[in-house]
């Protein structure tokens, strides 16, 4: 199996990304290491090949954004918008992630071992997110589809204006957003959490999570609501 190293002290992010945007069949199965990432933006953005990228340090904004098929591991922390708009594959952050992690991800799995900042999973469109730590305020805002598993706590307004995404939280929720509600955990929920935790390498008891989903009261315009939600 081919293994290649890009050192961002001497090579540019463009060098790396142009390589990663090469012929998908030729790239399949390759293992790429990125050393000295030094917080650079846009590392491994727009990859569409079944390969493995390891970022050996802290990544800047949008790392692994728009990912398709690839497995991208960030050994340090990730800046704003990690794995934003991911389509498939997996992005794994070993440290913490800043704001907007996994924003509008359509597919794939984002795992954050540490905490995630504000607006994690905002406008989620079908991707899965597992956060080992806590998430900041306004997470899963307007999340449309997909699942979020939060092993720690959540900040204010979790799941505000939620559509059909489902959230599972183990810790304390500071406040739920408009139209988000707690629901009972079904067997299907327990299975879903078990599988997502396993995929993230975590072994919490699925029964220790609470389910949060949309009450669907905002789906239709209510002229009598008088703008009070």
């Amino acid at each position, binding site marked *: 199996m081919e293994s290649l190293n890009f050192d961002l002290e001497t090579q540019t992010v463009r060098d790396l990304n142009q390589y990663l945007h090469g012929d998908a069949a030729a790239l399949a199965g390759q293992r790429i290491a990125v050393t*000295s990432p*030094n*917080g*650079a933006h846009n590392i491994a953005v727009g990859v569409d090949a079944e390969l493995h990228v390891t970022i050996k*340090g*802290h990544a*800047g*904004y949008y790392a692994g954004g728009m990912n398709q098929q690839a497995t991208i591991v960030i050994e*340090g*922390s990730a*800046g*704003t918008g990690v794995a934003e708009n991911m389509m498939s594959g997996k992005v794994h952050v070993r*440290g*913490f992630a*800043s*704001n907007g992690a996994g924003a509008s991800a359509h597919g794939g799995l984002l795992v954050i071992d540490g905490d995630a*900042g*504000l607006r994690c999973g905002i406008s989620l469109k079908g991707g899965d997110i597992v956060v080992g730590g806590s998430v*900041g*305020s*306004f997470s899963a805002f307007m999340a449309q589809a997909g699942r979020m598993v939060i092993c720690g706590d959540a900040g204010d307004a979790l799941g505000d204006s939620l559509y059909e995404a489902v959230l599972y939280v183990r810790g304390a929720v500071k406040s739920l957003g408009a139209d988000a509600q707690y629901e009972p955990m079904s067997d299907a929920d327990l299975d879903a959490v078990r599988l997502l935790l396993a995929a993230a390498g975590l072994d919490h008891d699925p029964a220790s999570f609470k389910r949060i989903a949309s009450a669907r009261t905002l789906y239709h315009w209510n002229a009598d609501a008088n703008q009070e939600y």
Partner: protein
Amino acid sequence: MCGIVGLLVKTPALRERLGELMVPMLIGMTERGPDSAGLAVFGKEVDAGQRKLSLYAGFTDEGAQFPWAALADALNHAMDVTARFDVKGNHAVLTLQGDAERVKLWLREHYPKLYLLSTGRSIDLYKDIGSPAEVAARYDFANLKGSHLVGHTRMATESAVTPDRAHPFTAGEDFCLVHNGSLSNPYGVRRKLEPLGIHFDTDNDTEAACRFIEWRLREGDALPEALQKGFEELDGFYTFLMGTTTELALIRDPFACKPAVVAENDDYVAIASEFRSLAHLPDIRNAKVFEPAPEEMYVWKA
């Protein structure tokens, strides 16, 4: 967008290298703030009877050729303040004995185009338009020494690109503030402060935050109390980094709209808008790196 950097060295030996460690941090924030740059450095305090004034001559006709020596002669002739100047082109730090307010009045009267950047016993302040690399070279930032500093790279959004609107802003003595973001109520804050006799130099939104916090400190609030009142009064997007003689303080707005990252080890605390600016600090791999939470106060003692 703007860039913020801050550095506080815990190991006394590193005070000699404060500027050298900071310059790559400042230049690392060039993409966030290419139009102006500045910093405030806090060093050893002068005696209680002395004051330092940082002065900017870029608005005078002479600019970098400003006759600082002639100014020193005239000032010492006019009053007994044993004024001496540490000159770097269009910038000088004036150290004086006695009443700084009397000297400032005299300067305003005789050198109205000379711009006062800071007053205090430990603060020196430099700011100007130009790229961070240009400004750092202009004032030889690499050789600055001290215990801590507050730096800024500016991409102007709320007021014009001029040296006086660059950051850091100062108010009172030994206090400075830099800002990434934009306030939505700076004029409301101004309308509260101006009737109290607080004078504004510019129309910049950050100046309102700076003067508000300094006003609270002067009214007797400890820094955490002043910052709490800042959370209540200042509306908008902000990451603020502030410096006093003994402290570096950081706060972020409740929505965390503007970034900040901190790296801390036994030798230093380093703050930047993005990790890019911290990546080359010594032994950064083993530093504790974290993102400061919104609406929390972070205060580090020098």
